[in-house]
């Protein structure tokens, strides 16, 4: 499957997952669907039959509330049956609203308390190096609002100081957080410049352009002694008009029968 078709399947399955619960983190799940599609189509060296295989690429979804999009991706890749998607947030589920490494096959790190993912990724990346694994990478997806947490910048400083060129940060720069536009809540200025100041090599791409994103990730995988950051310009709620139009209130919202049907009709 091409990344393009895959991203549509991811969005459909994400909404199936959220619809089973009737509501959830819609906007931020839809905005990362293309990044997940490109990563799992072209880059992630993982084995659905053996998700904890030591020699593998790893993903940390630091904005853990986008769990449903990750679960959709992993189910479509065969890590677990599709009908698990209908158990979101039900007691005893393996798919909690925020990603949890102890519960879900294919999830490499727990997240949900924002701002911890990059540091955890540094640990995973150090671990790879300590095991002499020079061919795998740790990808981290953060929100743009999430980058307000100072710990991200501790992680960034560390990654660069320790030459963690096996870390690739992907910022889901959808310019929205819960209380409104990131720019109005607490402005982040030029994210590329910030990461560069912390020693990263950076690029900025349209986060819904699969070709551009794929190319950016290929470039980021050049091992040149520095960590890489890709700022992805995205749209929160991407792919479903009713959610795109909602703005910041699509962060956590309903997926009722009507909204679900409408979304599926658009996601062809």
């Amino acid at each position: 499957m091409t990344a393009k078709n895959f991203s549509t399947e991811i969005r459909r399955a994400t909404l199936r997952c959220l619809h089973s619960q009737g509501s959830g983190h819609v906007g931020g799940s839809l905005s990362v669907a293309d990044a997940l599609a490109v990563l799992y189509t072209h880059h992630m060296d993982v084995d659905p039959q053996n998700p904890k295989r030591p020699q593998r690429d790893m993903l940390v979804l630091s904005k853990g509330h986008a769990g449903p999009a990750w679960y959709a991706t992993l189910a479509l890749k065969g890590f677990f049956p599709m009908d698990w998607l209908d158990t979101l947030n039900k007691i005893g589920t393996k798919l909690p609203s925020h990603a949890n490494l102890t519960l879900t096959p294919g999830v490499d790190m727990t997240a949900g308390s924002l701002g911890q993912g990059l540091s955890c990724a540094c640990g995973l990346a150090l671990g790879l190096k300590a095991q002499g694994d020079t061919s795998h990478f740790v990808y981290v997806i953060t929100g743009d609002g999430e980058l307000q947490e100072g710990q991200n910048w501790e992680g960034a400083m560390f990654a660069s100081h320790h030459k963690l060129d096996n870390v690739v940060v992907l910022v889901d720069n959808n310019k929205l957080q819960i209380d409104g536009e990131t720019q109005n809540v607490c402005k982040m200025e030029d994210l590329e410049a910030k990461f560069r100041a912390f020693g990263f090599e950076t690029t900025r791409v349209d986060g819904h352009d699969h070709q551009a994103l794929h190319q950016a990730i290929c470039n980021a995988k050049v091992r040149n002694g520095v960590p890489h950051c890709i700022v992805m310009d995205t749209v929160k709620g991407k792919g479903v008009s009713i959610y795109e139009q909602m703005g910041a209130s699509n962060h956590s919202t309903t997926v009722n029968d009507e909204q679900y049907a409408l979304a599926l009709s658009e996601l062809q």
Partner: protein
Amino acid sequence: MELRKAYVAEMARLMKQNDKIFILDADLSGAGGTKTLYQQFPERCVQCGIAEANMTCIAAGLSASGFVPFIHSFAPFSTRRVYDQIAVSISYSEQNVKIVGFDPGIETTYNGGTHMCFEDFALMRALPNFVVMDIVDDVQLTKALPHIAQHQGSVYFRMVRKQNKQFFGEDYNFQWGKADKICSGSDVTIVATGTTVFDAKVAVEKLAQVGISAELLAIHTVKPLDEQAILQSAQKTGIVVTVENHSVHGGLYSAVCELLSAKHPTLCGAIAVHDQISQVGSLNDLKIAYHLTADDIASKAQQLVQAKRG
């Protein structure tokens, strides 16, 4: 009324009276309800972004300049996420900061394990210069807030943002630091805090049906504890059961046992979370999973009463 609505209504009134009060948020002003205060008091409402540690120390600085900041987030992020900031810049520095923890324990439901804080009483009780409270309903919150604002010292209080069931009548007489006796009984004392009082009250009725007379004390202030009320009741009934939406370690059960063991050793059972990992689910399913239902409370009380009667 939803607690978050009652909260902003009363805060608006207090902010008009007292121009020292500040509101600080970390990207949850819409979720917590304070957003509506930003228009009315633009100079004293401060959005900090998703940066709770920063917000906590900004509050400490405001307090050191003579202001009375109220800071808000989900219970785990307003306490454990920023514990050293609270310990050093607020507690140790003897500042006057009011910390609000939304949706404690199982009340966080579908946000799940990462947001499910069973430790906040334990953490906050351990710090000097802190009053620790657990709010039940809009009536109690509205009556408690003027005291919280006035108190010279820091206060941590938890509240469930969308809780809209009323427990207390409009004639409720809130007393700072004092337990509320909901009903008198002679066989067992049930001491409950926060939203667990609803199920504790149901448990009292269930116990009555099996011939057990339970006394119910509702505790809004876990620290300092209303020692007199608890001791008096324990002396009368000889058996205590505590009920809390919190870990059995360091919360209400610990506070009550610390008191009883020193001043009136009494058999004491706990309805609390027993070292179980947090998880996602509906409120009802979580109550069952963590054994926090009215039936759990009643059977624990019954078991202890029967053991004593022999």
